[in-house]
């Protein structure tokens, strides 16, 4: 028992160190090489490439990566399904659709969109997709079928998004197109502040739900008997996971596979699924994972940026494939 706690502490320290290390590396590396002294100078003066471009981007990658992973973990618990996540369930795509709609309507009228309205739009889209997924989940009790439904919903949303984009003004298309591929670039300090607030609060609330989440991992029947108010808990879980993934989509577009791969890797690292450890673990792990992927996205073909999703897919999809293969016949869908 004691050594368990030691292992959890050690794991969290390790993930924190990893995230911080990658954060520094990210700031230093890029199409313009920068020394430590220059970084310090830039931060002190709050100007220059480091302060205005790289640091906000790096902060966004860390915060949003963490948010996405925690969102994935919550959804996996909710659906008792190891391959559930905001992207495969079509929740990110729903957010993408509404954000695109918001962008096109606002931009065509020449109104500047606030980040807050982007988040709100994304949240509405997330909830709509989530609503469909929930409807489907009542009918299909099988975990692979649920994911197939999610992918369908995602595809429908993407198709409509493409449709919207096609009819958008030329000047908007570039903007929209870049965003809809997913990228951390172009984040401002104001954005970072807003996302830090939203994610911070959602994360704290999720952490405070650790106890019922742990009970829910035993299935609804047992959770209820242990004293969890199931109806309220389900609503809380849906709102939090949707808010987290909506925030990510609003700022960085849809990002694939992080939500499934990171929770799985983190559970493997800690050899437990206890939410009280896994929620902070997921946040740190997700931050590290996205920092790493963004580093590759920025530097692999510098000065060209790759979309973040293509990088996360390369590293995340194999984990998902492994997960699907290791579950014989897709059992444990609804139990």
């Amino acid at each position: 028992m004691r050594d368990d706690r030691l292992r959890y502490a050690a794991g969290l320290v390790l993930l924190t160190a990893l995230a911080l290390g990658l954060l520094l590396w990210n700031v230093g590396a890029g199409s313009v090489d920068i020394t430590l002294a220059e970084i310090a100078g830039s931060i002190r003066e709050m100007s220059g490439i480091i302060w205005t471009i790289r640091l906000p981007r790096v902060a966004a990658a860390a915060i949003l990566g963490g948010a996405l992973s925690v969102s994935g973990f919550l959804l996996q618990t909710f659906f008792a399904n190891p391959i559930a996540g905001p992207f495969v369930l079509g929740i990110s795509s729903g957010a993408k659709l509404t954000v695109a709609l918001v962008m096109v309507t606002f931009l065509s009228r020449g109104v500047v969109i606030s980040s807050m309205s982007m988040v709100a739009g994304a949240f509405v889209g997330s909830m709509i997709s989530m609503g469909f997924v929930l409807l489907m989940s009542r009918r299909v009790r099988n975990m692979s079928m649920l994911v197939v439904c999610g992918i369908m919903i995602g595809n429908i949303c993407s198709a409509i998004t493409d449709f919207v984009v096609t009819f958008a003004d030329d000047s908007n298309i570039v903007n929209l197109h870049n965003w809809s591929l997913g990228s951390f670039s172009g984040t401002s300090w104001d954005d970072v502040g807003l996302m830090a607030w939203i994610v911070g609060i959602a994360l704290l609330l999720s952490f405070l739900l650790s106890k019922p989440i742990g009970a829910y991992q035993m299935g609804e029947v047992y959770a209820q008997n242990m004293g969890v108010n199931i109806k309220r808990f389900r609503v809380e879980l849906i709102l939090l996971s949707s808010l987290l993934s909506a925030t990510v989509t609003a700022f960085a577009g849809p990002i694939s596979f992080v939500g499934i791969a990171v929770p799985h890797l983190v559970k493997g690292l800690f050899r437990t699924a206890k939410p009280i450890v896994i929620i902070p673990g997921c946040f740190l792990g997700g931050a590290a994972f996205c920092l790493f992927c963004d580093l590759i996205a920025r530097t692999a073909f510098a000065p060209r940026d790759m979309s973040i999703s293509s990088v996360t897919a390369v590293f995340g999809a194999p984990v998902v494939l492994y997960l699907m293969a290791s579950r014989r016949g897709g059992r444990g869908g609804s139990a």
Partner: protein
Amino acid sequence: MSEIRLHTENLSVGYNKKTLIGGIELTLRQGQIMTLIGPNGAGKSTILKSLIRQLPLTGGAVYLDGKDMAALGERDVARRLSVLMTARLHPELMTCFDVAATGRYPYTGRLGVLSQEDRRKTMESLELVHAANLADRDFTRISDGQRQRVLLARALNQEPEVLVLDEPTSFLDIRHKLELLAILKDMVRSRDLAVVMSLHELDLAQKISDWVVCVQGDSIARQGPPEEIFTSQYITALYGAARGSYNALYGSLELEAVRGGPQVFVIGGGGAGIPVYRRFQRQGVPFAAGVLGENDLDYPVALALAAETVAEKPFRPIGEEAFRRAAALMERCRRVLCPLEEFGEMNEKNLQLRELARQAGKLEEGADLYAAI
């Protein structure tokens, strides 16, 4: 009389606001095991799920310690009532200790961190079900029997007054069935628990229950102590078992008798006849059995399986009348078997029957008796 833990008033249960079973009146006292029996799909699980608030009631009320459960908070219920249901569990990366420890949920703080006391109680619960050695094992990698025991430990760890179990012995082999029920019985005695459960195994239900509730379709067909419920006739009727019968005294099932005029006469008694009856039943050969005292071991089985049975009143030597009937029946049979080897004052006439058969050249005897069949 001991205290009432759980009772219902005009309870009706069902799905989607449609009542399946109505007018349910149950009273469960501490130290009592109440068992729901009845055919598949009769609604045993529906009743249990309604008792634990997993299904909304379609009418009436359930009272826990005299308080209406609908008005009790989650934690209040959790501290008084725990469950072991049939839902298959696949918890991720949980040891048996972790699973049992979830029973402490209603007693831990905001974040659910286990105290030293919680850990001690969890180990204690595991010891009670003889599963302390499994504490560090992965829950998904133990046998069904072990899993049920760990889940029972989880339920006990919740320190309930009432325990609700849905078919706890399904999927277990006989050793584990007996083990689980023995532990349950011990718990009821030592902790004054009140237990309500559903069981498929009638023989076990008959032996472990203090009170039996028969669920049949849309109602509680009957309830009472096991000695009132478990009569062969009633159980056979309850389950609508047309192609066989249930023997209440032995708690055993018998297949249906082979119909038709008897071809073989079996002289049995004292248990010697039973294997022979069963063999003829399997082979579809109609047979007659005789002469058996009505208190003979063979008698209930003969009654269930034989085309015709010649019997004598209990505790009496076989009389002239029974002998004549048996002899007449034997006359009509082509073969006679006599697995019986013990003869005394009571069944002297059976010895005469055997002699009669031998003289008629119909008797098949010797060590290859079973081979002869």
